[in-house]
């Protein structure tokens, strides 16, 4: 049923937007082919504004491709669904719901009773290390805590794949590092498939088992790097530095070549 054993396949994915003012077509994605294996932690890295977020939104089903297709378990994606969970850069927590009730949102709308949903929400808050914060509103939480709650909210609907759109980009450096380590632990613990979009090569090398390099807009996959370093990774490690330099140099060459 699955194409080549992959959970998620992108086939010749193109997306262009028509600019409202000029009426010109703005090409964002220029034929993306990609396979994501079940259980993999894949990082998609590319320069800012290259269309990484668009790519993730296409996988989530929040956008429809201009041509090509997204296959989930071999079936074309036609809209959003809880099997493809999304974590947003700006958290997108419901400000009128407490942490626990944000996490239970997906369960409540799936018809799980409020009590049962609350119990399971507490469980997921424990998974992300947020026990004891259940009754706080998002405005009372720090950026890192908000993102933990947002991750718990997505996990609660038990998605097959976690789509993460630069989730740590608006955090301070220290919190970002802590969250990266947390994500690796979470991934090892849950075995979830993760597609993680970032503009930071450092972050991609720290997290990714596979690193997909995108060119500048319109984005193409320029190269895929395998990253077999064991977790948790050490940024001062020789192999870490070597791979980071290699990818940086490669992307710089691509960007310069395109420009």
């Amino acid at each position, binding site marked *: 049923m699955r194409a080549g054993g992959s959970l998620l396949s992108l086939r010749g994915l193109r997306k262009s937007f028509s600019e409202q003012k000029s009426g010109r077509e703005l090409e964002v994605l220029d034929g993306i082919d990609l396979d994501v294996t079940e259980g993999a932690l894949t990082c998609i890295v590319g320069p800012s504004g290259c269309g990484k977020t668009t790519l993730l939104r296409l996988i989530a089903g929040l956008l429809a491709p201009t041509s090509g297709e997204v296959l989930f378990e071999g079936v074309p994606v036609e809209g959003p669904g809880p099997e493809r969970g999304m974590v947003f850069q700006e958290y997108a927590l419901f400000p009128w719901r407490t942490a626990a009730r944000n996490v239970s949102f997906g369960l409540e*709308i799936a018809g799980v009773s409020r009590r049962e949903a609350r119990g399971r929400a507490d469980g997921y808050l424990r998974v992300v290390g947020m026990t004891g914060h259940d009754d706080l*509103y*998002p405005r009372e939480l720090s950026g890192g805590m908000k993102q933990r709650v947002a991750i718990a909210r997505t996990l609660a609907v038990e998605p097959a794949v976690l789509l993460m759109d630069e989730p740590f980009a608006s955090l301070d450096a220290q919190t970002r590092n802590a969250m990266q380590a947390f994500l690796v632990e979470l991934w090892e613990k849950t075995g979830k498939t993760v597609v993680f979009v970032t503009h930071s090569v450092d972050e991609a090398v720290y997290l990714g088992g596979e690193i997909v390099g995108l060119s500048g807009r319109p984005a193409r996959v320029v190269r895929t790097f395998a990253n077999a370093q064991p977790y948790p990774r050490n940024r001062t490690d020789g192999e870490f530095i070597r791979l980071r330099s290699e990818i940086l140099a490669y992307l710089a060459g691509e960007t310069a070549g395109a420009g």
Partner: protein
Amino acid sequence: MKKWKLASPLAALAVWQALAVTGALGRATPSPWDVLKGLYDLAATGLPRGYHLQGHVAYSLLRVFTGFGIALVIAVPLGILMGWSRWFEAAVDPLVEVVRPVPPLAWLPLALVWFGLGLGSAAFIIALGAFFPIVLNTVLGVKGVDPRLVEAARTLGAREGTILRRVLVPGSTPSIITGVRIGMGIAWMTLVAAELIGVKNGYGLGYMIMTARDLARFDLLVAGILVIGVIGFLADRLIRIVEKRLLRWR
């Protein structure tokens, strides 16, 4: 800081009393003390005699809450639908925009033909006055909901109806409450103006102050104005308390 809040009203009262005592205001303008006595007369004797202040307040509140309630019940769902559905807004908005600039009181003659002199016509024009700020702020609130929240709900499995009930409605609540506060203020103003023109049963604060004018009882007139102001203030406070309750998350 809080004690200073009373400074300007107290100073105004002191100046007013002083001017009245020296006779600078003339015979027609009562002093604060006269007004206080007037207030007592209104409650004890009534104006006209036997029509007590309590009755005037009760009937005015009845009219305002009937009209305001009707406006609320229609305006909030309508505004939510308009904010939610583009085609519905396109269809309904022109009508709203044409009727909105008409002062509610301009409808009074027509309302009298339709409903006669009584609760019906008063409630009708009060509802008209309160309706538009509530509708417009509700539409604004729904449109102002962060699209990311809608997307988040979608990726969590929410369908349109769920998004409407669980994202757009709670997300637009702050703006709806703003509309409700403005609408309540306008409802109260419209009420008094409507009562100035006439009431059937002899009760109503607007009617009461017109009676005071006809009898040249300016102490009672100013006392009536004071009562109208205080009730308007209390209504606004009430909405603020509800707001605090509903928007604990802010």
